[in-house]
């Protein structure tokens, strides 16, 4: 049974290899091949999941060693998989949502001549993501980590003919690279501290290490997580990443890849638990990003960018929860799973809207679509209710738990975190309601495209709506299912551990507070956008609005602090290299050349003159020899 584990990765990898190398012969059915590979992997995941259910908690984690990968004396890294409750959760999420989005893409990308390659990239992403969550050591995890980065790069820049897409792809990869530096250094630190980079090895020895070492490792892991999960200060790439096709945004930049940071922190819980300062840093990052993303989400008129802000914010929740330690790990993962469903559903809905509106992304040009696109409206609406935490839907259970956990942190810290998460919930309700109203309600604000064609919104084909419906079901029921009888808690507890903490407020109070915040947010949004017509051109807005529209000036900051000095430095070095180093050498050569051109006059070309100098030289030599002998 364990031999199925490598097949989980191998199926999409083989699909990717076939699709990318196969050539035009596969153009006709390549998309189905890709979908099949994803589905196959999902089936394997299910088989493994059920076989795991049949074992007792202690025997559930299994390992499958394939081959020795990098064997160098003290440094041993293997291609070896570990499947436990945590990773199987991810496997099911990735392959399940992945398969649905493959299916959706069959319709969405139907008119793209490079559809086969798109599916190849999607399969490549699945393989890398599965490798990431299945690795039993950090180095192999790193492979998956960068592999998803590559897939993300390829998919964001899928429409390479658009310079904006190519730039966004490059930016995403670069910012992720900064995070990767963190992961590299973390692995190096582990190696120097423990001589080992496997999960078991490192976690087993973690309690012997000093706190400063663990804090260093933890902070570096956090840097990695920030990069991949678009957390402050490495968040700037996610908004631009929306240049990619919408299924990509749904799968990679909402449901799976961006949550890898949460996985990393949860997986490395054994380190963070012993490094409270690192945990504090994690919590701070989560809290800041939570608000940051939410604010950005409020200001964006581009539907995908608004959803991207929302993703950032929701992952902030998860990171925050993961930073709380054993109090929050389970809820971080739970929110991750439910978020995977509803956010993917929301993105697919957004994609469906764009599909119907001739790729228009500006919400101010939508309006009144609920009649024309009923399925999209309903599924999107269910996702909306789930994300704002409407009671009974998925988001309600998971987000509520995180807010409880934040309070349960205890002390001032707990109050601050609780307040932040509550504010976050309110803002979430606000911007999601705004998206809802702008898109589906109100009057039509459709604009003709560049050639003057009026859009004719229509419902999307079945290949697209089916995944949306399935995901809507997930958005509705997943949370309840997981929360029911604390089944998810019991499932994950052996891996992540759990403690209740001591909340100053009872869970009922927290729930009520959350409800109140949510209602306030919805109400405010309705007051602003629902009661009066929405202007087609955005009003100037306050300073905060303008800043938020520019992603709270994050790009301006990066540009001023990193990009411009960097390119100036590179230009200066180019000058230094040619004029300084090379100039020095060339100057030396010129000096020697000058001297020799003077000396050259001695060489008059007359052979007798040369003979004379040779003879003179012999004379000197003989004289010297004789003198030396006589001395």
């Amino acid at each position, binding site marked *: 049974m364990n031999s199925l584990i490598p097949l989980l990765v191998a199926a999409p990898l083989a699909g990717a290899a076939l699709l990318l190398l196969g050539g035009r012969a596969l153009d006709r059915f390549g998309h189905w091949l890709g979908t099949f590979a994803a589905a196959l992997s999902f089936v394997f995941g299910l088989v493994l999941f059920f076989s795991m259910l049949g074992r007792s908690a202690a025997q559930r984690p299994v390992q499958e060693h394939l081959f020795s990968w990098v064997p160098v*004396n003290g440094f041993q890294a293997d291609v070896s998989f570990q499947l436990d409750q945590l990773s199987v959760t991810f496997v099911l999420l990735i392959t399940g949502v992945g398969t649905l989005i493959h299916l959706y893409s069959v319709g969405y990308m139907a008119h793209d001549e490079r559809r086969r390659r798109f599916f190849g990239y999607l399969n490549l992403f699945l393989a890398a993501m599965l490798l990431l969550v299945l690795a039993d050591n950090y180095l192999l995890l*790193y492979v998956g980590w960068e592999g998803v980065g590559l897939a993300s790069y390829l998919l964001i820049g899928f429409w390479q003919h658009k310079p904006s897409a190519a730039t966004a792809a490059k930016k995403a990869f670069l910012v992720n690279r900064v995070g990767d530096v963190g992961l590299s250094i973390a692995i190096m630190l582990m190696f120097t501290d423990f001589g080992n980079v496997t999960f078991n*090895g490192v976690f087993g020895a973690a309690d012997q290490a000093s706190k400063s070492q663990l804090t260093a490792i933890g902070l570096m892991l956090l840097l990695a997580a920030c990069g991949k999960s678009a957390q402050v200060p490495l968040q700037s790439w996610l908004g631009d990443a929306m240049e990619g096709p919408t299924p990509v945004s749904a799968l990679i930049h909402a449901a799976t890849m961006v949550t890898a940071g949460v996985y990393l922190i949860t997986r490395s819980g054994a380190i963070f638990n012993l490094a409270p300062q690192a945990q504090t840093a994690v919590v701070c990052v989560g809290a800041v990003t939570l608000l940051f993303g939410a604010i950005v989400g409020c200001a964006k008129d581009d539907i995908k960018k608004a959803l991207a802000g929302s993703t950032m914010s929701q992952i902030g929740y998860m990171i925050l929860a993961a930073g709380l330690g054993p109090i929050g790990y389970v809820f971080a993962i739970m929110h991750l799973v439910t978020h995977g469903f509803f956010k993917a559903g929301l993105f697919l809905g957004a994609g469906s809207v764009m599909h119907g509106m001739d790729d228009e992304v500006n919400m101010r040009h939508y309006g009144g679509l609920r009649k024309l696109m009923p399925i999209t409206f309903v599924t999107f609406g269910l996702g909306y209710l789930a994300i704002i935490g409407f009671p009974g839907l998925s988001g309600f259970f998971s987000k509520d738990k995180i807010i409880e956990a934040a309070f349960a942190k205890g002390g001032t810290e707990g109050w601050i975190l609780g307040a932040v998460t509550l504010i976050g919930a309110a803002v979430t309700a606000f911007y999601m309601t705004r998206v809802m109203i702008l898109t589906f309600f109100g009057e039509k604000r459709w604009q003709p495209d560049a050639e003057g064609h009026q859009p004719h919104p229509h419902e999307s084909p079945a290949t697209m709506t089916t995944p949306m419906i399935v995901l809507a079901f997930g958005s509705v029921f997943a949370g309840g299912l997981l929360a029911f009888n604390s089944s998810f808690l019991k499932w994950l507890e052996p891996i992540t551990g759990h403690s209740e903490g001591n909340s100053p407020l009872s869970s009922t109070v927290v729930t009520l507070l959350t409800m109140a915040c949510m209602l306030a947010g919805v109400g405010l949004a309705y007051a602003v956008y629902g009661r009066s017509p929405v202007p087609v051109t955005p009003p100037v807005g306050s300073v905060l609005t303008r800043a938020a529209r520019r992603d709270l000036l994050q790009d301006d900051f990066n540009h001023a602090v990193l990009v411009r000095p960097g390119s100036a430095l590179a230009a200066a070095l180019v000058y230094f290299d040619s004029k300084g180093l090379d100039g020095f050498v060339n100057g030396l050569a010129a000096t020697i050349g000058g001297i020799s051109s003077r000396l050259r006059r001695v060489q008059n070309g007359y052979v007798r003159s040369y003979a004379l100098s040779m003879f003179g030289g012999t004379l000197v030599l003989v004289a010297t020899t004789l003198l030396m002998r006589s001395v």
Partner: protein
Amino acid sequence: MSYLLTATCAVPAAGAVLTAALPAGSTEARRRTTKLTALTVSAVTLALAALAAARFKPGGARYQLTESYSWIRSFGISFSLGVDGIGAVLVLLTAVLVPIVMLASWHDADPAPAPDGTSDSATFEGRRRTQGFFALILAVEAMVIVSFLATDVFLFYVFFEAMLIPMYFLIGGFGDRAGGPEAARQRSYAAVKFLLYNLLGGLVMLAAVIGLYVIAQQQGQATFDLQSLTSAIADGKLVIDPTAERALFLGFFFAFAVKAPLWPLHTWLPNAMGESTAGTAVLITAVVDKVGTFAMLRFCLGLFPDASKFFAPAILVLSVIGIIYGALLAVGQKDIKRLIAYASISHFGFIIMGIFAMTSQGQSGATLYMVNHGISTAAWLLVAGFLISRRGSRLIADYGGVQKVAPVLAGTFLIGGLATLSLPGLAPFVSEFLVLVGTFSRYPVIGVIATFGIVLAALYALVLYQRTMTGPVRDGVRGMADLKVRELAVVTPLVALTIFLGVYPKPLTDLVNPAVNDTLSQVHRTDPAPAHPVAGPAGGEQK
């Protein structure tokens, strides 16, 4: 005593003579004969190298398949060959790359129309171009292989220097002739610069070689034999005064650092790589330069252990400057080939850093790095060469949107770029990470600074890809042909190797590790022990 190693270097040498002696290439058929002959010779060399590597037993003595023939007896110089794990992988690299380079340069040495429209096939020089080019490549291969196999310091020196001669002619004689007199002037400047830098390094090394011999002779060890010298040093029979040892070390190291090249001795490389054909550039950066880093590992560390340790921190600082500096300059380049050259300088910084970190991870990583850099840069550079030959310009600004018209070319170019930025799963990642880990475990600060090189690597590789391959299709690019069968045959093995060695580098590490351990024991260094070692068998053994 087997003759395998001698055969491995004699075959390309004889092939060079044979190729040069073939009838002049005034017709296409004759040129084809020349090229096929050269290709066959290089294939035979590859087979011999593979046989030698297969015969090499990783668990056995450090040097195996040894051969020794007396050469200049009065100075204890002999023609001694022997292969260790490090040499074996590098010989294999050379033997693999040369046929690929030949295939990639198939038409680079054809008589081409001069700028004024006349064909130069009528002149003697024009008619012998093809023979000359392929014979020179084979000559370089033979000399490089001898350098990798030599276990005699003097023998090594001779071939280390001699390979400059064919390289000089390859750089100066064969470039893009459409460029007119200005390009020819640049090319000759590059060739002379290459020659002068390396000759200077070689001369300093010659002085050190003689100095070493004199010191050894004074203590009754009048030999140039590497194994005798190293064992004498290890046994204390040969004691070199610290000052003298440092001077000798610097003499050797200077030559290798020029060849490698190490910052700030690198400025010849961008010129040489920029002006020569893509195939020659591959020979420079992937084969010839490796002799420099290889020799640091074998000669500097083996012969001067104490001085190596003394200078290691300074060299590490230079190499880390090289990593960052090379990457930053690569970002600032406007010329594709120069960009790749600066990227190589950055990579050489990694290799040298791995060597002088003096940990088994660092040195194994550095050795793997030499191989992986050779393969991946060859792929990147050759595809860039194909691209340049289509458009006739090396400027990045002249390209754009190639991906649209030539997707396979763009795809392989991307893989080359990704390999250069050390994407995990591709070969360079393994080596780069080992180098970083090895350095970090002894010099954490340097390791961390070097790690930031990977961000810059992503920057220059992706910026190059973005500017040339993506975006709207530019005028000069429209109608550009995708890779042809011959070009695919060049790129495919390189890409396959890049991926294979990234996933399964064990065959190489098995070869390299024993030699690295031996080198480390020569310098009396052991890996720093982990602060809190994990009990039980290390890594991945759990059931």
